[in-house]
């Protein structure tokens, strides 16, 4: 059975060109970037080359890029690091969107316990934040606004240039988690007035274990990992040189091929969305129809539970993911789907299909065919009617 991977939003395979670029940095050029000798120097040089490529890609200065181990770490550093750096100035109010990744939500909730005040933004049915509510929420003691760029579950893309403008006008920091959008939507941190930006390597055909936090020169931030003073003393830890080299190469590929690749994906995405919505009854699309990540499809299949659907597809060799409560640790439906007002039963029946560099139209046609059979089978077992 030929397997079909449609979970690129979870993680992507390492592009063979990236892997090739990384290879020398395991056993030959294995140095510690802090070492003064030739091994250390060549490792440091490779890291700086990657830093430059990534900085250029988002219109930043290489000095403003900090390497971390993951987007989760970058988001933690951005939010907690900013909060603690300004604690003595009585700036203890943060504004966070309710459709953030868990690591942003959990960081904000943790800060709440430390005495910080959090305002959760309103979002509409498509997951777009209410800009008026944002404007009205900014107070004298507001420090930071954090809004995810491209949503990891429903794919909705926020107008971050507008958010950046509002933040700059009100002199508050603007952080955006661009883990999903980085490489899919052009980002210019200067034009978009972004102070802090998170991006990850393993979502762009780079290896796991490398990510960045862009920190604007003007931003004041406190480290959360203390030690040997790496990364301008903002993130101590020996640098993961091969992974960073890989991330640099992954960005280089996106720089030259990204635009074409994303247009191809939009076509494939819309093809499958339209086919599912017209050929499978009792389905609807979650997230914004147009302001959407080029590779994200999130559809609710009424009367069918998401984990069952994901597993049936897995048996047929198709890898996708679900926002079902059954697959979550606390048996509660996804906070993103709840935030956009989905009824619990619709949140349980949602499926995320995410496309990538090696997705073909044939794969999508086969997926559609199997999806029809599987949905029909589960609806035969289900006591819940799906007709709308």
């Amino acid at each position, binding site marked *: 059975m030929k397997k079909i991977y449609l979970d690129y939003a979870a993680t992507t395979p390492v592009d063979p060109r990236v892997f090739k670029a990384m290879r020398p940095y395991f056993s030959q050029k294995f140095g510690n970037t802090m070492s003064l000798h030739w091994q250390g120097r060549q490792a440091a040089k490779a890291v700086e080359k990657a830093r430059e490529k990534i900085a250029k890609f988002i219109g930043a200065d290489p000095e403003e890029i900090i390497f971390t181990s993951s987007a989760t770490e970058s988001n933690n550093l951005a939010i907690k690091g900013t909060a603690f750096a300004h604690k003595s100035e009585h700036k203890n109010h943060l504004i966070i969107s*309710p459709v953030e990744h868990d690591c942003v939500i959990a960081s904000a909730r943790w800060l709440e316990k430390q005495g910080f005040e959090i305002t*959760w*933004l*309103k*979002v509409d049915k498509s997951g777009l934040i209410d800009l008026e509510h944002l404007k009205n929420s900014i107070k004298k003691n507001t420090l930071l606004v954090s809004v995810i760029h491209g949503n990891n579950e429903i794919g909705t893309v926020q107008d971050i240039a507008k958010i950046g403008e509002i933040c700059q006008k009100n002199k508050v920091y603007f952080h955006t988690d661009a883990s999903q959008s980085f490489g899919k939507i052009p980002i210019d941190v200067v034009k978009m007035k972004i102070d802090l930006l998170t991006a990850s390597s393993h979502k762009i055909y780079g290896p796991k274990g490398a990510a960045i936090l862009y920190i604007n020169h003007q931003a004041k931030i406190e480290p959360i990992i203390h030690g040997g003073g790496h990364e301008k003393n903002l993130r101590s830890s020996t640098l993961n040189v091969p992974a960073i080299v890989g991330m640099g190469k992954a960005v280089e590929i996106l720089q030259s091929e990204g635009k074409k690749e994303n247009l191809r994906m939009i076509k494939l995405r819309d093809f499958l969305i339209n086919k599912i919505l017209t050929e499978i009854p009792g389905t609807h699309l979650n997230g914004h129809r147009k302001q959407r990540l080029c590779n994200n499809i999130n559809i609710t299949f009424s*009367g*069918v*539970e998401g*984990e*069952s659907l994901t*597993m*049936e597809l*897995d*048996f047929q060799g198709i890898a996708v993911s679900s926002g*079902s*409560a*059954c*697959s979550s*640790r606390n*048996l*509660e*439906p996804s*906070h993103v789907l*709840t*935030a956009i007002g989905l009824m*619990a*039963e619709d949140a*349980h029946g949602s499926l995320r299909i995410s496309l990538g560099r090696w997705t073909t139209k044939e794969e999508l046609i086969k997926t559609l065919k199997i999806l029809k059979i599987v949905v029909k089978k589960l609806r*035969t*077992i*289900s*006591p*819940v009617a799906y007709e709308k």
Partner: protein
Amino acid sequence: MKNNTFYTKQTLKHFRHPHNYGMIKNPDGIGEAGNLICGDLMSLYIKVKKIPLKKGLVKEIIDDIKFKTYGCAAAIATSSVITDLVKGKTIEEALKISKNDIINILKGLPPIKVHCSVLAIDALNEAIYQYLIRNKKPIPEELQKTHKRIELGKKTIKKRYQDYLQSQRRAI
């Protein structure tokens, strides 16, 4: 069959090829358990056959049982197993079936999915409760307790979910 470390081979088999799913026309009892809100919803339909014994006594056996379930793989697998366990048993025997009987047949369930097996037992108890009520038969004390617990549980889940929604709305 593919290796899935989360569920046992037996669970996956029942999930993929469930036994006795569907509905029974004019069932003698319907048991519903779970709550769509928390994710799982199970309906069990039973048909009871009366077999005359000596001295005017009657033996009641569950002659047919079918299920309809909305839920995860564990919910579907436990539904399938309980129908196998119940078919042909007397009411008294069926009431003795426990969640561990189901889990044993499945050779284990992940801890977070154990509640699915409870759901199956609850649905069965509810179906029998309804049958006994309909036929104006005495309800064993234990079953009365179970029924009350399930009713209360349904309310609690609803309340819990309302609270959860509230906490989410606070965020909105």
